[in-house]
């Protein structure tokens, strides 16, 4: 009995070994990436380039998802509110759900799908073609040159994109209110603005900041640990999207919990 329990335990420990090592590696990379923010040399050109691909490149898709999620929320909420005769407050719910949840999470999803995978496949191809080794051989730290610029660019651009998605979503809600609900524009917009307090804005900006860190670091981590040729690059790309998405939801819950408890 004792022996079999011991056997089970080692089996369990063996199962845990790999995820624990992976987590450790991930945190080491995170530490180095943040450390490098304050260290020379700074690769300003790379930051600008990444801001362009991540920020400007994601704009169309973020605008689209923002618009349709705002519109769909307005439709759903107006139906629920109709039961209480409160259709006039549709703007309130659209604005709260957008700023607190849908804006940050949906934007992060879109950018994760586009850029976590993009980063993982770019760094992964560099890894399997020895370009990462060449970089080290030629005097640059790949974390400094590749990871830190992507971290800064994503953490900076994602809140901006989220704000844009929020506004476009509110606009989408207004289109629904105007066309299907016969709400006066003034009533819609004033309920939208009055719903928001500073706490919501803080929450709505803090989330994308942290999601941006997750998206870039997961992408870089998966890219840099790629092995096994082009097939390996494909695997890393998928892993990056899966992990970034899961982590965004987990962290979203944590942050929301902090704000909900704090507000109460």
């Amino acid at each position, binding site marked *: 009995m004792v022996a079999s329990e011991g056997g089970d335990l080692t089996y369990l420990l063996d199962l845990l070994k790999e995820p624990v090592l992976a987590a450790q590696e991930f945190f080491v990379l995170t530490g180095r990436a943040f450390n490098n923010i304050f260290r020379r040399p700074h690769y300003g050109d790379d930051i600008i380039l990444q801001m362009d691909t991540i920020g400007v490149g994601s704009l169309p898709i973020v605008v689209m998802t923002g618009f349709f999620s705002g519109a769909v929320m307005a439709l759903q909420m107006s139906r629920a509110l109709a039961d209480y005769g409160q259709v006039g407050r549709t703007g309130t719910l659209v604005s709260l759900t957008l700023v607190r949840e849908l804006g940050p999470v949906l934007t992060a999803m879109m950018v994760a799908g586009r850029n976590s995978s993009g980063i993982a496949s770019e760094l992964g191809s560099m890894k399997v*073609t020895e370009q990462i080794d060449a970089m*080290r051989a030629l005097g640059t730290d790949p974390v400094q040159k590749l990871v830190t610029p992507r971290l800064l660019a994503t953490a900076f651009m994602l809140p901006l994109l989220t704000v844009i998605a929020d506004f476009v979503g509110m606009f989408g809600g207004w289109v629904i209110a105007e066309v299907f609900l016969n709400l006066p524009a003034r009533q819609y917009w004033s309920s939208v603005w009055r719903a928001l307090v500073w706490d919501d804005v803080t929450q709505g900006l803090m989330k994308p900041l942290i999601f941006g860190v997750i998206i870039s670091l997961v992408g870089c981590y998966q890219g840099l640990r790629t092995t096994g040729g082009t097939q390996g690059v494909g695997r890393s790309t998928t892993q990056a999207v899966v992990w970034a998405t899961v982590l965004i939801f987990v962290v979203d819950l944590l942050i929301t919990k902090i704000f909900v408890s704090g507000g109460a």
Partner: protein
Amino acid sequence: MPERNKTSVLRFENVTVAFDGEVALHDVSFEAFEGDSRVILGAAGSGKTVLLKVAMGLTKPESGKVFVFGKDISRMSEKQLFDIRGKIGMLFQESALFDSLNIEENVAYPLLNQPSIQCPRAEVLPRVKEALEFVELAGTLEKFPSELSGGMRRRAAIARAVVTEPPLQMYDSPTAGLDPITAHTIMALLIKERDVSQATTLVVTHRYQDGNLIANFRYNSKQGALEPAQSGEKEKLRTTFMVLKEGRPVFEGDQDSLEASTDSYISKFVKQRI
């Protein structure tokens, strides 16, 4: 062998490397002196690439010591290693040119980024052009690696490896995947670079012909071609051969004893020549 009293450039002391328990290099020891040429032969997967990466500090040995220019690099931090790497030129197996940079930027990269190389801005472009002319690639400055053929990429990567004039040069399978004519051109370039710079040269290859060229030919700068070395010069070329088999060194010595070897793995390499 007569003592030459030369400076040691690269020394491996009982180096063992393993990846997840799989041994890639097993107890490798050798020493290369200033101006030496060393040819490392081995089948695919025998640990040739790993050996070069250990010599650059890109891969850490599990046990043993690696001395480069007299300094033990096996325990150095990445930052300390940058100084040493500035003195080593490395051609990677698949060229490893940066896809996102054009050829000019690729060749300029070590001049601009190697912390131990202080190259004034104004000298960067002339030196890049000179290095590209050396490998007969002048006129491709604006091209991207994806626009070049395999042989041209290899040549651009050689230019990037030697643009800083490093005293230790390492070439990882310089002829792998090239047709015989292009392969010969690349080998001629390596020998030209070795004879012009007098650098210590390590060539890793699975082709015995490459080793034979390194050991017996020299670059004639007047004719701009390779020519067989005279017997007096042959002594000066001082080429040592080393054979790796599944991570273990199974031979070290000069060409004559290599050709005399009766070991079946070793003689397989030598027979390729005929």
